[in-house]
């Protein structure tokens, strides 16, 4: 039973990470009705930002500043830079295509994803970059309940994931910006007629969503230790799955989907075989799509004529 709970904890941690990526993905889909294929690559960029922050402050084993401060700088910088990158992508590539046929921004998004991945390959090389988290955060300093260990990085990821998710929910539900976002998501033209600055709202959505992906990238670096230019694609696919399983465009759905995918993945790896993990995740997605195309928490959309 201990093994089961250990896998459950691992799964929830990974799931929290997927949730964050899926949240941003879902937000962008909400306002623009665009599947941002480049979202996973923003995660990758965030992971690289975190890596270079560690290097900047002396490397993992000889840090020149305290660990909490380092983590703070990593998260803020990754969030800010990746958020800015997201806004730049929106401004440059998606805005001109806002009224184009649906297929055009999708293909552009694929192009951007490919471009980002290869730009990272050019800039950072194909080799593994290693965070060496264990050198500056002791893994043994966690909570142990029976035979289940939750190490400190996992705790941090869980807490930060929860804080960000709740914060995002409050932002979307309580603030003026959130109201604008919901209005734009419901009907862009009507929102514009009501005097909402649509361009600003969409840019802000992109910033928030991309920043979440960037923060998730740093978390991923701390959790899994390894960073390569190709990690974005597979995490992007998982986040995709999470967002779709939960119901695309729905924020609680994205969260739930992320956790589900994380737990399912960790259970399959633990109990069946790690070679089939991805295959099972993809199969899960296809089954959900066929049985309930609007996702677990999504609402079926009526087609307007």
């Amino acid at each position: 039973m201990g093994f089961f709970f250990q896998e459950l904890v691992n799964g929830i941690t990974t799931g929290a990470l997927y949730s964050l990526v899926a949240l941003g993905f879902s937000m962008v889909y909400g306002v623009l009705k665009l599947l941002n294929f480049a979202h996973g690559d923003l995660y990758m960029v965030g992971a690289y930002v975190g890596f270079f922050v560690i290097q900047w402050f002396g490397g993992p084993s000889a840090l020149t500043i305290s660990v909490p401060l380092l983590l703070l700088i990593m998260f803020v910088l990754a969030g800010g830079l990746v958020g800015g990158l997201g806004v730049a992508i929106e401004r440059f590539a998606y805005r001109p295509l806002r009224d184009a046929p649906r297929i055009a921004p999708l293909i552009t998004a694929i192009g951007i994803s490919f471009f980002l991945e290869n730009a990272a390959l050019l800039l950072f090389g194909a080799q593994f970059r290693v965070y060496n988290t264990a050198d500056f955060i002791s893994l043994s300093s966690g909570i142990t309940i029976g035979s289940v260990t939750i190490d400190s990085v996992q705790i941090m990821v869980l807490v930060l994931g929860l804080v960000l998710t709740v914060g995002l929910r409050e932002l979307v539900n309580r603030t003026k910006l959130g109201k604008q976002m919901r209005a734009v998501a419901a009907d862009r033209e009507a929102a514009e007629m009501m005097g909402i600055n649509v361009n600003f709202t969409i840019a802000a959505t992109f910033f928030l969503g991309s920043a979440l992906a960037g923060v998730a990238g740093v978390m991923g670096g701390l959790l899994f230790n390894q960073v390569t230019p190709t990690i974005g694609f597979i995490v992007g696919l998982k986040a995709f799955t999470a967002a779709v399983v939960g119901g695309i465009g729905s924020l609680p759905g994205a969260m739930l989907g992320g956790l589900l995918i994380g737990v399912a993945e960790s259970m399959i790896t633990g109990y069946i075989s790690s070679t089939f993990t991805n295959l099972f995740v993809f199969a899960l997605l296809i089954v959900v799509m066929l049985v309930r195309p609007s996702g677990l928490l999504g609402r079926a959309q009526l087609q307007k004529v």
Partner: protein
Amino acid sequence: MSLDSPLPPAGPPPPAGPQVGADEWVAREAHRREYLPSWLGRAQRQAERVGWWPRLALAGLAAAALPLIGLGGFQLQVGIDALVVALLAVGLNITVGWTGLLDLGYVAFFGCGAYGFALVSSGQVGANGIHLPSYLSIPLVMLATAALGVLVGLPSRRLVGDYLAIVTLFFGEAFVEFTNNVAPNTLGGPNGIVGIDPISVFGHPITSNTGYYLLLVVVLVVTMAVLRLLEFSRTGRAWRAVREDPLAAGSMTIPVDRVKLMAFAFGAAVAALAGSIFAAQQISVFPTDFDTPFLILIYAGLILGGAGSIAGAATGALLIMVIYDGLLRSPTDSGYLFYGLILLTLVVKLRPWRRLGLVLGATLALGFAVHAIAAAISARAVAGSLSSTGWIGSALRDWVIVPANAATAGNWGFVALVCLLIALVQVSSRTRTILLPPTLYLAAFVWETRLSVEPAVTRQLLIGAILIVMMNARPQGLLGQRRVEAIT
């Protein structure tokens, strides 16, 4: 009132508007077709009078003649790859270009074709293996893959647009995972299937690359001809109607679901045909032959040439493969391509001539100035060597600075270049003229220090850039016609 009634009042001439019965938009588009100025336009009009089949036959003959005039070895392999991708792009055009269904699992159909052909024409299955003759195995594989296409297309009945893209994308990913992990004794896992029989035509097995090249030319020409006939058939028109508006098409009694499934089946069959020839020519298939970058390559070809046009899809794919596989492998050729493309773009896009001269002159002056200043400040700043050789290299020696740590400087230059390029699109025309010389110089700098050094990455970057730029600047592609979009 006199008997000799005056002429009717000279009102305005009858409007040269749409004729009765012709759709207003279509008429206006045909009226507004743009032709090049002067004799070029006349030539264009003349060329348009030639029917499609003489043009296709001529292009096929020209392609078939290429090996005779000394295309061999490596170039022939590039030609074969280009033809395979062209065949795939033409097939993808059915689902994406005509029916408007974003099929991101298309490469899996190609893989199914290749694996299917490999299974029935090698020693992989059973004790002695199955060795079907190719006139049996290829149609069989095409039929099976078309059936699979229908199966994958089934969700398209319920899922609109984006959801279909996701399901097909995951189907593509699942295919790679599947061939990698499932049934390693039959599918070979990562080691793939080797020792595949050659394709026989009229009893003669094709074993040479020249043979496969000619076979591919014939297959491509025949496929294009068939698809051209299909394009204006009832089915073809139904596809395009579904693309424009499924709801309206449905209310015009077009069986939308069946039409979508047919598009999937036809696309998959073409992909399977390409896959069979690919497998026979390579003699082996591996899961990595069918991964996402290859899918993006096919898409880039289709988009570059123009989705919705058969000739566009084939031309775009051929063009992109010759650049991707051929030119960008050799540093000299890629240098010509890079500088040539930049100059060509400037000459075509920058008007008036005064402005072009100004920009080029400023770029030249800027380069020499920067080089002189950098050399005067520190010898290390110009210590590196250009990656271009030959006359381009010697011409640029005193113009582009290459510092001792070229890789790092080139990386920063690349980031700056991307920022500048984004800025160029956003600013006004006057600022753009001012920003152009530094951008051009930076582009040359990044090319010499970084891009030309790593051709494998550069060509992938190019594919991504083509998708982004084409979709924004010219969504109809090089040969496609701009579609009239009903804005909803």
